[in-house]
């Protein structure tokens, strides 16, 4: 067959970047969202105050931040808290959250599913079941339709 003698460089061009009608999200200013305070959360876990640790871990979610390091750090903190919980304590912990808290918890849970580790999936599934009982399908839909990740 005839050999392709012309340049194939055009095949590597991302045509969507040049689409003048491409949809670009509104960029909210990255508020000073540093994610939850890891030190405070650590202290509370060591003291055994799991409820407070959860509430602190769910504060200041780095939603608007464009820095992936901050997001990684926040995810790690929340995952630590979630795995340190005893199975029987999960349900009352979820019940103590308000609507926004449950939605935020769901977002962290799904973020945790993306990178499974040794036993994180099992714990996350338990959390998912309890959070689903409170938040319903709506909370999962909100995770799926959110334009910015936690």
């Amino acid at each position, binding site marked *: 067959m005839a050999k392709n003698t012309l340049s194939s460089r055009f095949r590597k061009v991302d045509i969507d970047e040049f689409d003048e009608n491409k*949809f670009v999200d509104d960029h909210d200013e990255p508020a000073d969202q540093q994610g939850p305070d890891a030190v405070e959360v650590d202290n509370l876990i060591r003291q055994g105050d799991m409820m407070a640790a959860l509430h602190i871990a769910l504060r200041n979610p780095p939603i608007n931040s464009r820095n992936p390091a901050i997001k990684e750090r926040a995810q790690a903190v929340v995952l630590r808290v979630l795995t340190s919980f005893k199975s029987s304590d999960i349900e009352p912990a979820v019940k103590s959250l308000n609507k926004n808290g449950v939605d935020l918890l769901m977002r962290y849970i799904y973020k945790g599913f993306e990178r499974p580790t040794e036993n994180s999936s099992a714990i996350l599934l338990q959390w998912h079941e309890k959070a689903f009982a409170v938040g319903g*399908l709506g*909370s999962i*839909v*909100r995770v799926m*339709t*959110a334009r910015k990740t936690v």
Partner: protein
Amino acid sequence: MSYHSFLLEPISCHAWNKDRTQIALCPNNHEVHIYKKDGNNWSKIHVLKEHNGQVTGIDWAPESNRIVTCGTDRNAYVWTLKGDVWKPTLVILRINRAARCVKWSPKENKFAVGSGSRLISVCYFEQDNDWWVCKHIKKPIRSTILCLDWHPNNILLAAGSCDFKCRIFSAYIKEVEEKPAPTAWGSKMPFGEVMFESTGTSGWVHGVCFSDSGNRVAWASHDSTVAVAEGGKTAVCASLTSETLPLLCVTFITENSLVAAGHDCYPVLFVYDSNKAAMSFGGKLDVPKQSAQKGMTARERFQNLDKKATTDSKEAVLESVHKNSISQISILNGGKAQCAKFCTTGMDGGMAIWDVKTLESAMKDLKIV
């Protein structure tokens, strides 16, 4: 509440005539079928064949008895009844993507078409040329327009779009009407002006509705929320997240109460409290007759555990009247101020008519304010 199953295919869209004896609907193909009520049955009396693509929107003007339809073939037709036949008139919308929704204005001298071309075509009849002409509203729309609703003043138009925003535009056409009086949404209303743009909810806006006075607008978006905004110096927004699947259509039944329905296959009531600027869940409007709970034998329990890993006895059968998502809701009697009956059609090819008084008495705790 009555339910009639028209077809096996989804009903893409429907519209009622003025005295609610005839319904025009699209059976998920290129045609529009008009059914007439015949006692307890419905008989098909007309088939309107002109579109080359699926008909995505139908609206029936009550006073002038004209039907406007729009479809994925990028066209809209205005149908007038001549004797016993509906005659179409093509309207050139100048769009290059499918049309998605169409609505007559309250005075029926204009209609608006939302399309995938990221614009709204506002069409009016030009007497000199004996032809429908359209004007485009383009900025700042950035994605498909999914739903439209007119303000009672015939000028303002609410549009829900796939760019996650609900907006109110001015569709003032100086050729056919007078300058409008100021409203709660603003006083300067040149054509295409954005009077309001929503913030706070994400997700495609599937359904939008003005209240009867026009001072409030409600929209349902794909992130399972429903929101109401009230016009004023600064528009006040109140939204409610729900635990259900996303809602596809919403309508006001009184100034403070909304009914919405969607992928969960049953209509739901929401109540808006303007003093607190907050919305609350009013109740599920579809209480199925309680079927007798059969006891489960030990064998059935074990089988369930084996097959589905649960001992739950709930069968995978929907208990609601509609067996598939509800895609459109329309008011039959009473208008948006004191609705007495409303109608829902859905993907199960069925149409259900709901009586507000019966619902109120059937469900205690249901308060329609």
